[in-house]
């Protein structure tokens, strides 16, 4: 009896910490936004609540997300087919490279495309040199295509991983059975493959849609002033126009819609036919044989390389090349290799837009990322155990813990600013809140990594250890921990990189004296001058390398055969 009660309290304790954290740092800000939005709506303040403007922003957000998703499918589906069917040289490398954009901070994505297609990017520099032009001829930035391109760049990997994973596990006997019943290749695809892959395609598409719908950094930096998604508008209304009620209304619209999509995504991606359609092992890959297969492989490889590798390489190379006259030295063009942009990161010149050395941003980001990683994983671990231990109740409560995925980072930032500006909090405590905001942004990913592994440990394993005389601490150390170690490592890398690249909430919470790397990059690239541009590139490259290391780690630590999401 006593033991049973002890167990109950343990369970309650498991729940208590994550629940308290979410209550204070997620549901409290959320409530503040809701209060604000509905008070604005009820008061009917014509100036702050503009239905036409909200509708227009919502419409554009929806439109660009739809277009982006369709284009991403256009790139992702052929690539998913390629990766799930064919073996070719460089396959592993290409697979890894396509994962990189997904964990790349949006700010870095924007800078990548800027370094390729922007006025100082390779494309324009090349054309200017080739045709002796004085002005950059190509204006792709600040347009819808730039937004779409960046969205395709960083979401294709989702389609490749989810649909490709399902495709490679699709029981080949089913399609062979269709062939034996007289179905040609087209009918086999239309009647068998497509319907059976539909949960994967639908789920992945909705996930991509969700990311595109809540896109912030890319739209802010590549869309220019003419285009604003709900996220960007919330940011602008709150930080530049100080129209908090309108920002609140926009947040509520955004939150409601993303929750709907997230719910739909969850429903759609449920495996419908279970074991019957999926074999436990992956079908063998083979080399492309026919001429059509070879052409297809080559075309997709070139497409993926152009889409993924080109912007990444462009960033890295552009960050070490000086091609323009320095400020105050007009006319003396020093073209060639330079590490100046990197060296300048450690110096505090008066030309810098900060009155602190840029390296401070790096230090800040690392500190925040470390803290956010610990908080997110501690919470994630506790929550996973709480959810796993409580059976049916856990399944009911799970959405409350996954909900932060639906709330965008900008909404979170807005909520934080509104709640934590009252005593005992003040503006100076904002930077201290950054790791908490980051932990919340990372929590859904952490849960999605840890929970399936934890649920995968058979209870009989723990019971066996228990009957052999191991206490709960011993069981955790000897059974759970070794099994969980890889997942824990993956989720830590996830949380770290998410925090390092987080831009939406940070743009609300970081102060002039305490920027994070993405905030610093955004400020650099928004300013004129070759040095600012170069420093933005240099910082982005550093972030890119950290993320590359992260994606290698994730890929290595991932259990074989296990897919993200």
């Amino acid at each position: 009896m006593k033991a049973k009660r002890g167990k109950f309290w343990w369970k309650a304790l498991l729940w208590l910490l994550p629940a308290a954290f979410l209550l204070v740092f997620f549901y409290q800000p959320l409530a503040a936004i809701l209060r604000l939005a509905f008070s604005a709506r009820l008061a009917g303040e014509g100036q702050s609540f503009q239905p036409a403007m909200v509708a227009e922003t919502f419409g554009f957000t929806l439109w660009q997300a739809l277009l982006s998703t369709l284009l991403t499918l256009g790139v992702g589906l052929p690539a998913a087919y390629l990766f799930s069917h064919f073996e070719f040289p460089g396959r592993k490398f290409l697979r890894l490279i396509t994962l990189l954009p997904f964990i790349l901070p949006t700010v870095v994505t924007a800078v990548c495309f800027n370094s390729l297609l922007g006025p100082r990017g390779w494309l324009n520099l090349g054309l200017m040199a080739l045709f002796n032009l004085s002005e950059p001829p190509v204006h792709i930035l600040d347009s819808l295509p730039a937004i779409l391109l960046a969205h395709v760049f960083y979401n294709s990997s989702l389609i490749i991983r989810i649909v490709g994973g399902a495709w490679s596990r699709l029981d080949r006997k089913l399609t062979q059975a269709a062939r034996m019943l007289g179905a040609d290749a087209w009918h086999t695809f239309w009647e068998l493959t497509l319907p059976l892959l539909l949960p994967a395609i639908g789920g992945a598409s909705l996930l991509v849609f969700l990311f595109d719908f809540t896109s912030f950094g890319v739209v802010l930096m590549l869309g220019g002033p003419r285009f604003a998604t709900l996220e960007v508008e919330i940011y602008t209304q709150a930080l530049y126009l100080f129209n908090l009620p309108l920002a609140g209304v926009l947040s509520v619209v955004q939150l409601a819609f993303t929750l709907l999509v997230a719910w739909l995504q969850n429903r759609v991606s449920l495996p419908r036919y279970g074991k019957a359609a999926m074999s436990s092992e992956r079908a063998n890959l083979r080399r492309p044989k026919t001429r059509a297969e070879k052409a297809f492989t080559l075309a997709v490889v070139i497409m993926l390389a152009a889409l993924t590798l080109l912007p990444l390489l462009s960033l890295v190379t552009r960050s070490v090349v000086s091609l323009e006259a320095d400020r105050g030295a007009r006319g003396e063009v020093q073209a060639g290799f330079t590490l100046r942009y990197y060296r300048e990161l450690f110096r505090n010149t008066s030309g810098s837009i900060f009155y602190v050395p840029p390296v401070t941003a790096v230090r800040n980001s690392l500190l925040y990322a470390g803290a956010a990683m610990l908080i997110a994983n501690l919470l994630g671990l506790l929550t996973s155990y709480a959810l796993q231990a409580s059976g049916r109740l856990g399944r009911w409560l799970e959405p409350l813990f996954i909900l932060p995925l639906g709330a965008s980072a900008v909404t979170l930032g807005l909520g934080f600013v509104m709640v934590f500006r009252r005593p005992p909090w003040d503006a100076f405590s904002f930077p201290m809140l950054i790791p908490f905001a980051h932990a919340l942004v990372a929590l859904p990913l952490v849960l999605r990594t840890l929970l399936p592994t934890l649920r995968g440990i058979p209870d009989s394993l723990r019971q066996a250890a228990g009957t052999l005389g191991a206490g709960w601490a011993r069981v955790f150390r000897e059974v759970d921990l070794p099994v969980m170690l890889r997942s824990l490592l993956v989720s830590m890398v996830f949380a770290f990189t998410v925090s390092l690249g987080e831009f939406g909430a940070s743009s609300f919470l970081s102060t002039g004296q305490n920027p994070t790397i993405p905030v610093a990059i955004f400020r650099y690239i928004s300013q004129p001058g070759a040095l600012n541009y170069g420093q933005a590139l240099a910082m982005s490259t550093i972030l890119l390398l950290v993320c590359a290391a992260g994606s290698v780690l994730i890929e290595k630590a991932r259990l074989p055969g296990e897919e993200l999401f």
Partner: protein
Amino acid sequence: MLEIRDIHKSYEGKPLLEGISFTVREGETVCLLGESGSGKSTLLRIIAGLEEAEAGSLWWNGEEISAVPAHKRGFGLMFQDYALFPHRNVQANVAFGLRMQGLPSAEVEARTRAALAMVRMDGFEGRAVAELSGGEQQRVALARALAPDPRLLMLDEPLGALDHALRKQLIGELRRILHDSRKPAIYVTHDREEAFGLADTLMLLHGGRIAQAGSTAELFRHPVNAWAAGFLGLGSLLSGVVLSLAPLRVGTALGVFRVSDCARAWQPGEKVQLLLRPREARVFAGQPEGENQFTARVRDCLFMGENYQTELRVDDYSLTIQTELPLGVGADLVVGFPPDKLSCLEAE
């Protein structure tokens, strides 16, 4: 009808099929019997057109079909785990092949119903395949393969996933359906009970070749070698050396045996194996008298309903015999095999 000529195929660099040739005649059921990994399923997939042979050719009524793609061969294949389409109900699964033929929907429906009736699954049309039991799934898969009226029916271990009792019942039904449809069929299995129950012609696949082909009775009476006898479970094998010819006498660890079966000409000194069939054993009391008899100790005696299955041991050789009466475990007795009931077989 179907003629298979000199098919070769290797798997992961090792030869799997090394020159397989046989024919399937109209209305004939050919059983391919072999151990797992013997390549029998691969052979079936080559005939189906799902895999390519490295050498050899396939002919249908004198016309080469090696290059015809699977969906145009007009062959039906029933997969080992049925491969029923999980997103379609029973009706749609069976109708699939008929729809692919572009038949009018009224005919599709009528023939679907007829196919389901043939396997006694009428009334299951609207059911999801996941709701069906293993035996029911097996019937639906058979109906699906039969519905488009294939010119050849192939079955890849169709009863492998089912329990013993159900298997026994379904063998009978399969025999009825194969007989009624009068279709040439190739049936792949590793289970000799299934093979004996269904085959017109039995083919043993071993070491990449067809070790023996013939009617079930032929194979039962005259296994081609010791491997075939062992694989078919015809009895215990005993190693020996030919001592003399006419009469054929074989020296073994259990003594000398005289054999009257002379399926093949032997050489003195040649290594052979004797097949000791359980039901041909004679049991005596006392001491062995001359050839074809030896003393053995009873290790175990199992009541099998009709008779007793008795396990005997002589030094480290053990054999199984059938007896009418129970024998006391631990007892020593004399066992004899009449010369006309022994088979002398090529050693492996």
